[in-house]
């Protein structure tokens, strides 16, 4: 086919740099500076897409982000879907194909659905996707209606990045108004952030043949850009779309293909003192029968292809307009040697200055386009007099239409600033600013260059709105939204069915809900609603403009915030030892990674866990308890404070002693469990469960700062200041002695639930006798710098006793055997201390503490409670899945509880479990039933403890 439509000269393309590309399986050539759209037009490709719903053939309509028709999917390394062909910058080797068609847009089997178009009316989805029948339609609809698929893999050639910036002035858009605003702010010494979505600065001047002070307008642009680049206080980005205007003048900018090779896109979050919205204006479509046929294009886009890309989209172009701007298009086309076969103007009186631009061209006033002849390309347009005279066919291969111009107010509206309807330009304009921002240039309704830049010469703007063509000769569909195939009849149906609000019309018809967000057509939907209801257009109002202004890739939004960067794992000094010794690492809450178990070669999980548990029960084990949340509290009022946040009494503790306690929230839920130790009169140390450390810190700080600002309590997080090796098992004391310590280890001198400072293995240490396993335990706390060395010494000193490292799997087994709580397992929002058999922790003496009143209130209702019990499967070898429901008699009826844990007990040589069961405390000895999908498991209800019920061993 060759470059048949490329003009001999002109355009901002580099004819010395040809680029090869492939579209829908065919090879073509374009030039550096082309978009995929301009290159396709240059190659004479007219049918470039199929429409979403009816699979009608479509061509290229626009030249920028407003493009409603031609969406493509890029292939290869940088695969991405649903990109308007007009925004895809051509590069060597680019491969793309159209969405919505198979096998090709020229011969599309889906096109057959056009025959059924009358069965897919507005609201089709709402009417069809209803219970109970929707699943009958879903598969075929999804197959037919899907746009491009998500790429299978992330882009291979680089990564996404996020950056924060601050600016005195952010300017959105580098057209004439934006450049002028940036220059003024830059010259005044302000920090300026100028971002523009195009590949180069200039905005509409790139597309038009205008002059400023009798020189080409692009010379002025080049000088402005050069001056801005000379200013250190100015950041100027191209290929950078300001796509969101958020509260407090935060704007989000997506920069594509920044200078660095390895960065695909960069997401800027810019906090600006002032925002200048210089986003220009968007041409709107005319609504007439056949306005979606390939070759029906926006007039300014045809002009852009001629001036900017040196492409004539057609050899014989007809224009259809209701405003002056199309006359400048016609003049540019004629100057480029394109035959203009007619200008149809719906206005009766065309301003003389417009006519003067095209003295030799046939202008038909008070005439509208009422139909298109041609299926896959335009062959003629039906010119119909508004007054009802005889219509006639006028030959053309492109119909360029202009329904006027909408100031691009998306960012303005996103900022919550208001709009007003302006009769003069028949469009919605920025009105009152809600944040520190202003609109300038075309975005503010100044649609011609002379109103923006001194010396700019332009044709004055004038318009008589025409929301849709309404002449009797018109036949066939007239589209309001080309992308979503929403026609005038769809909007009328929605109105007939009672959807009178424009927001409802939008959703019911899906008009304006495509990837283009109705940039060229929404105003016509509003106009159609206004005409139908017989009300003025401002009374209908606009639909809400929401971010993003144009599509943004998920990669850009995520930026570098992928898992390991956003939430890095936390490590203890023993992590490397764990890995070196074959630990299977688990995530253990609050981003800590802890060893799950330490399998020997050939050993499975259960075998390894059994071995570790036996070591703790019969000999000695050690685990790294460093991740437990630890806080030091100092001050005169700590006892009072602890008595308020724990359900039991802490203030009576003597220095060196500690107590287990529950923290409740004021609505009676169990927030955390842990231990509190008194170090001396005014210093305390408390520990929390690993996963709740941050929540407890927030809880305590909030109380102290907002409720009790007068109380003298200072909280310091010391989780990372103390690491510990917890030596546990009947032979733990012997290991401690082997390590060497100046602390008297006898149970009389150093009993359970007490704390001693001293030296262990030569290191300053704080040793705490707590036990999470039910065995004799010494939690040896040292400074992190000594932790790895301590660990080695523990393993060495423990070797003669058969010491083993213990992972979290074994910790779970050991605590279940003892019936010790685990917050995520036995405790949820429904459970209180009494249910857990821990009523002793709910102080009767204290008149008030957090949660007391609420627990009492809830229990006073007398409702049946689910209480913690032990369960023994009748078959000792029967494992029960954790979380399994218990039902009365195992029948298929409402549950009476659930299994919270079930482990193989090495001391009992059978499976044992914990459960929450209705009235469980009164049902010890009874049989209960776990009901699974395919089995009922009978269990004996017991005390929730399976080992050393008196606690002799942990106190030894």
């Amino acid at each position, binding site marked *: 086919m060759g470059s048949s439509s490329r003009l001999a000269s002109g355009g901002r393309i580099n004819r010395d740099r040809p680029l090869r590309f492939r579209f829908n399986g065919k090879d073509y050539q374009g030039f550096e500076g082309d978009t995929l759209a301009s290159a396709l037009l240059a190659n004479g490709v007219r049918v470039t897409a199929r429409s979403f719903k009816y699979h009608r053939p479509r061509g290229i309509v626009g030249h920028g982000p407003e493009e409603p028709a031609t969406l493509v999917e890029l292939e290869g390394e940088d695969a991405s879907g649903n990109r308007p062909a007009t925004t895809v910058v051509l590069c060597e080797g680019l491969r793309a194909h159209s969405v919505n068609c198979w096998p090709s847009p020229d011969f599309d089997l889906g096109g057959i659905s056009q025959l059924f178009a009358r069965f897919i009316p507005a609201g089709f989805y709402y009417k069809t996707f209803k219970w109970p029948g929707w699943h009958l339609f879903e598969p075929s609809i999804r197959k037919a209606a899907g746009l491009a698929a998500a790429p299978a893999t992330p882009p291979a050639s680089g990564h996404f990045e996020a950056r924060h910036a601050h600016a005195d002035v952010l300017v959105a858009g580098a057209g004439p108004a934006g450049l002028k605003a940036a220059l003024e702010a830059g010259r005044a010494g302000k920090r300026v952030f100028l971002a523009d979505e195009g590949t180069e600065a200039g905005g509409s001047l790139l597309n038009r043949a205008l002059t400023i002070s009798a020189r080409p307008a692009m010379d002025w642009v080049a000088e402005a850009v050069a001056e801005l680049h000379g200013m250190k206080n100015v950041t100027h980005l191209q290929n950078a779309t300001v796509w969101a205007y958020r509260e407090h003048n935060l704007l989000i900018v997506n920069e594509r293909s920044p200078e660095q090779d390895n960065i695909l896109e960069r997401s800027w979050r810019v906090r600006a003192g002032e925002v200048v919205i210089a986003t220009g204006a968007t041409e709107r479509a005319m609504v007439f029968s056949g306005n979606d046929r390939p070759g029906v294009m926006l007039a300014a886009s045809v002009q852009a292809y001629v001036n900017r890309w040196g492409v004539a989209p057609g050899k014989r172009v007809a224009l259809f307009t209701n405003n002056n701007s199309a006359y400048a298009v016609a003049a540019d086309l004629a100057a480029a040697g394109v035959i203009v076969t007619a200008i149809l103007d719906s206005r009766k009186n065309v301003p003389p200055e417009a006519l003067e631009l095209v003295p030799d061209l046939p202008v038909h006033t008070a005439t509208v386009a009422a139909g298109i002849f041609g299926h896959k390309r335009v062959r003629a347009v039906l010119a119909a007099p508004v007054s009802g005279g005889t219509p006639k066919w006028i030959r053309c291969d492109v119909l360029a239409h202009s329904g006027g111009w909408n100031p691009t107010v998306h960012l303005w509206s996103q900022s919550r600033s208001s709009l007003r309807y302006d009769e003069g330009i028949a469009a919605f304009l920025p009105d009152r600013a809600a944040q520190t921002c202003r609109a300038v240039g075309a975005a503010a309704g100044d649609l011609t260059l002379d109103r923006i830049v001194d010396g700019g010469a332009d044709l004055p703007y004038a318009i008589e709105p025409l929301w849709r063509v309404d002449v009797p000769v018109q036949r066939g569909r007239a589209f309001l939204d080309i992308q979503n195939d929403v026609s005038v009849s769809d909007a009328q149906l929605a109105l007939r069915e009672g959807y009178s609000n424009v927001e409802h019309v939008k959703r019911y018809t899906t008009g304006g809900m495509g990837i283009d967000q109705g940039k060229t057509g929404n105003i016509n939907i509003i106009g159609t609603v206004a005409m139908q209801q017989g009300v003025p257009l401002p009374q209908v109002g606009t639909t809400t403009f929401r971010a993003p202004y144009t599509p943004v890739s998920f990669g850009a939004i995520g930026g570098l915030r992928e898992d390991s960067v956003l939430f890095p794992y936390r490590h203890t000094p023993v992590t490397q030892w764990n890995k070196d010794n074959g630990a299977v690492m688990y995530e253990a809450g609050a981003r800590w990674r802890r060893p799950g178990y330490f399998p020997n070669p050939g050993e499975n999980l259960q075998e390894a866990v059994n071995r570790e548990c036996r070591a703790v029960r019969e000999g000695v084990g050690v685990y790294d308890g460093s991740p437990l949340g630890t806080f030091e509290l100092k001050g005169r009022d700590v006892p009072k404070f602890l008595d308020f946040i724990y359900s039991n009494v802490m203030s009576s503790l003597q220095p060196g002693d500690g107590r287990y306690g529950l923290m409740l929230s*004021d609505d009676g839920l169990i927030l955390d469990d842990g231990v509190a130790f008194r170090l001396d009169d005014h210093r305390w140390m408390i520990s929390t469960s690993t996963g709740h450390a941050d929540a407890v810190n927030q809880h305590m700080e909030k109380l102290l700062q907002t409720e009790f600002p007068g109380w003298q309590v200072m909280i310091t997080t010391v989780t990372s200041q103390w690491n510990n090796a917890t030596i546990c098992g009947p032979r733990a004391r012997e290991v401690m002695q082997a390590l060497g310590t100046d602390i008297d280890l006898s149970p009389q001198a150093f009993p359970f639930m007490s704390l001693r400072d001293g030296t262990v293995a030569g290191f300053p240490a704080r040793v705490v006798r707590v036990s999470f396993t039910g065995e004799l335990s010494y939690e040896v706390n040292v400074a992190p710098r000594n932790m790895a060395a301590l660990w080695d010494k523990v393993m060495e000193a423990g070797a003669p006793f058969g010491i083993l490292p213990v992972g979290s799997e074994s910790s779970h087994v050991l605590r279940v055997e003892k019936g010790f709580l685990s917050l995520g397992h036995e405790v949820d929002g429904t459970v209180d201390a009494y249910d857990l058999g821990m009523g002793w922790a709910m102080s009767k003496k204290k008149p008030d503490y957090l949660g007391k009143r609420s627990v009492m209130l809830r229990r006073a209702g007398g409702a049946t409670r689910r209480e913690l019990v032990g369960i023994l499967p009748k078959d000792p070898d029967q494992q029960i899945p954790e979380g399994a429901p218990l039902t009365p008699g195992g029948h298929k009826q409402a549950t009476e509880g659930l299994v919270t844990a079930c482990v193989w007990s090495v001391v009992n040589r059978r499976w044992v479990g914990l459960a929450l069961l209705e009235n469980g405390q009164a049902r010890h000895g009874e049989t209960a039933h776990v009901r699974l999908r395919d089995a009922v498991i009978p269990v004996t209800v017991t005390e929730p403890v399976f080992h050393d019920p008196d606690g002799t061993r942990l106190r030894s």
Partner: protein
Amino acid sequence: MLLIPCPLCGKRSESEFIHGGPVGADRPDPNAVSDAEWVDYLTVAPNPLGPVQEKWWHARGCGEWLTIWRDTRTHDIVEAPDGIK
């Protein structure tokens, strides 16, 4: 993303803060109120269309709990902690 005035750090981005909810009624003496009054205290939170007084924690900053008045319609911070504009 709001720009929240911290009395110690100045205006900082919302991502540094944790929302602490609206400022409700003072905690009553639980032994001196009826069940209904206690439940109200626990469950009724101000949720006006307009200015609301709320707590924020500068968790990823100085650790200060602070109180602002924020207009729920506009996000405008209509009253900041003392000394901050």
